[in-house]
Structure formats: structure tokens, C-alpha cells
């Protein structure tokens, strides 16, 4: 049975966006083997300090150093969550926008955050992508 290899699509439902939460978003310098609820504000955010633009927090006994990063101009942060899980490759999937954010804090373990950090540099990608992709003016 010849079947298109890559015919399935995954829809992003936008209707949920008006109900989307605007949570605080943190990028942590470790892999946490968990997906789901956690008492972030009670045990993480509560220990966060900010002095002279330097954010510090204690997490599992380690001192983390953090910096706030804004989404590039014209860009929005989204959390996409699965609504319908396709049971096969051929089946279409559905995601929804569960949260939106405009900035997040990323944390380093030892090195103080700087503009050398990959994630900070990554934030200039949209600008460069625009140079590569925007239609050329004649």
C-alpha cells in the first residue's frame, strides 16, 4: 500500500491562547527527570535573590546565577502542550498554547551569565533569519 511518508500534520490550536497562563519561566542548568507539577515558587523562587542585576538562587544545595532574557522584538514565548497524541505516524496530532511568556530567566551553575552564553546568542537568531528569509526588495 503506497502511502505518503510524511502526510501527517500537527495542528496548533490557537483558541486556547486567550486562556493561556503567563507563568514564570526558568531554564535550569540540569536535567530534571520529571515532567509535571512541582512546588517551584515555594522551594525555588522563594530562595531567589537579586542584587546589582545579579540573580542568585539556591537549588538542591547549589548556588545558581541567573539572568533575565527577553524574547526578541516581534516574538512571543509559547508553551505548546499536546492535546491529542497521534497513535501512529500517519495520524495527525493536536497541540495547544497552554502558556505565553515574554521573558524568562536562565540559570548557570558556576559561570556568571553573560552575553557569551549560547541561549543569549540564540536570541539574535530571528534577526539573522530575517536577513536570510525576508523577501528581497527589487
Amino acid at each position, binding site marked *: 500500500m503506497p502511502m505518503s511518508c510524511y502526510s501527517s500534520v500537527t495542528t496548533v490550536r490557537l483558541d486556547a491562547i486567550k486562556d493561556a497562563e503567563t507563568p514564570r519561566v526558568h531554564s535550569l542548568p540540569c536535567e530534571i*527527570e520529571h*515532567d509535571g507539577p512541582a512546588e517551584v515558587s515555594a522551594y525555588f523562587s522563594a530562595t531567589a535573590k537579586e542584587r546589582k542585576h545579579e540573580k542568585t538562587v539556591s537549588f538542591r544545595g547549589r548556588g545558581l546565577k541567573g539572568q533575565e532574557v527577553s524574547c526578541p522584538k516581534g516574538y512571543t514565548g509559547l508553551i505548546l*502542550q499536546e492535546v491529542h497524541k497521534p497513535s501512529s505516524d500517519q495520524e495527525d496530532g493536536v497541540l495547544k498554547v497552554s502558556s505565553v511568556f515574554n521573558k524568562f530567566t536562565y540559570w548557570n551553575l558556576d559561570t556568571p551569565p553573560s552575553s*557569551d552564553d549560547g541561549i*543569549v546568542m540564540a536570541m*539574535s*537568531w530571528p534577526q539573522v533569519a530575517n536577513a536570510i528569509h525576508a523577501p528581497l526588495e527589487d
Partner: protein
Amino acid sequence: MATKKKRSPLRDASGWVVVAADSVVGAPEEGAGDPTFARLRNPSSGGASLYLFGGGDAQVYEVKAFAEDHRSWFVGETVQRDGRLLFITPMDPLYLLLPYIQEAGAEGKFQPANQVVTDEDFPGCSRLLRCTCALESLRLVADEKEVANQRFYRYNQQKTLDWLKRKVERTVSVLKRSDVSVGGGVKSATYVRVKSEVDASDEDYLRYAHGLVSEYVSEDLSKELLRHLQLPEISSPKEEPPSKKRKLSDKPVEAGEDYTKFNSADFARKPQKKMTVAQKSLAKVDKSGMRPMSAFFGPKVKQEKK
């Protein structure tokens, strides 16, 4: 991957953390429908990559993953194990259409676009012709003929190289401009250093921009473009590996270190990170669909060369 202990499997509830162009979620046209992720043929690798159609197919977007080892997210009062950050940026559909036009051009005759842009493996490719300006832009890479109100196209390599050259030149100017316009913010600082510390030459910029644009064309065309830009071929593209120190080191990123050779075949053999079904369905074929951004971090690396 150096896994010290057995990881528990990812739960299916995991989501994606995304930075998307406002137009993806912005006021949709009446009846335009929701955006959809679809897999299309990657114009550089020929493999499958993930893209997003938005605004009722008016715009196609590229999906790139920024991945570092050992990252997870806190989102509100939840943990998200997958620490990647996805970028969804508008894409010029012409890059995706070009391989089809080019392939048909081998036959040497004028053909209608909808006859040329078909793909058994990637039926979504015909949606590209619905993108705003996609049809009109074909004349940038093809000769055009109109017969009885129908347009016919035939690939023109010279036009294509001119088009790509302009793309490279504009990319150079944006790279340079972003050097200058450092407002103390973190965003543009990355390029400042290229200039002030490394004193990048015009050729460095040109080469780098060529590398960026080459991610969207075949290897052959990339080489042609190099000649067209009058840049000598570097004997080994491995000459400028991204800094290890920078360590954007998810597996696929390592595979993509050499951006001139960057393609999905490289990734196909790599062990997948554990992913949810949704993520697999989005990403599975290809990491280059969610292309790691190593290429983008190329220029800083020049420091290593010295």
C-alpha cells in the same frame, strides 16, 4: 550520551518551549485556520524537516531547536524535562520550492508550477505555492512564460545564483549592522565581539553569510554560489569547528558542527533523545527540521582559528 544511570522515561505530558514570530499567533485572517506543523523536504539535505504553516498557508516558518546538555525548564509550578528552546521564524518559501524547480529544469522545458511542485513523500509541498508571493518569486530562479493565461517556468541557474548572492549580501549587511547597534542589551552583543575582538574581515562576513544561506540550498548549489561570490573553496570545511567551550552539545548539535555538511542524514544515525510521542511526531525524522543552531554560532569561533 554519557548517561550515568538509567533515566526514567519521559512522560507524555511534556510540552514544547517555543519562541515564535508574533504572526504565528497574531490575529488570524478570517477563516485562516490554525497553524500546522508539517514535514517538507529539506532543500539542503533532501531529508525530512519540520516546518510550520501559518495564516492559512500564507506563511511558512522554519523550526530550529536550541539545545544544550543538561537543561530543563520550570514553567510556573511545573517541571518540563526537555530543556530545548524552539525558534519558529518566517521562512522564504522559495528555498523550499527551488529543488523542485531545479529538478524539473533538467527536462529543459517550461512547466506550470503546480505540475512541478509535487512530491509523493511530502504532499505538503504543494501548500508552499499558496504562500504569499511564492508564485511571483519563482521568476527569481526561473524563466517565465505566459500562454493562455497560464504561467510556465523553467529553472535558470544564473538567476538563482544572483538571487542567492543578494540574499548573502543582505545577510552580511545585517550581521555587520548588528555589530554596530549594540544597545548594551545582551541581544546584539554577540556580534560586537566578532568585530572588536576578532576584527572579522569582509571575507569572513561573506563566508559566514554564505554558510548561513547554504543551509537552505543543495551542496552543489552552495559550491556554485561560492564561485559566484568569488570566494575560494576552503579545502576542509572542518577548519572552523564551533568552539567546544560553547558546547551547544546536544547530540544533533555535534552532528551539525560542520554546517556546510549539515543534513538530516547525519542525524538519522544519532541516538534520539528521549521524546514524547508528540515530540517524536514533530521531530522524529529530523533534527534538521528542528535544526540545532550551531551554524549560527559560527562566527564567534573564528577566535579559535587564530
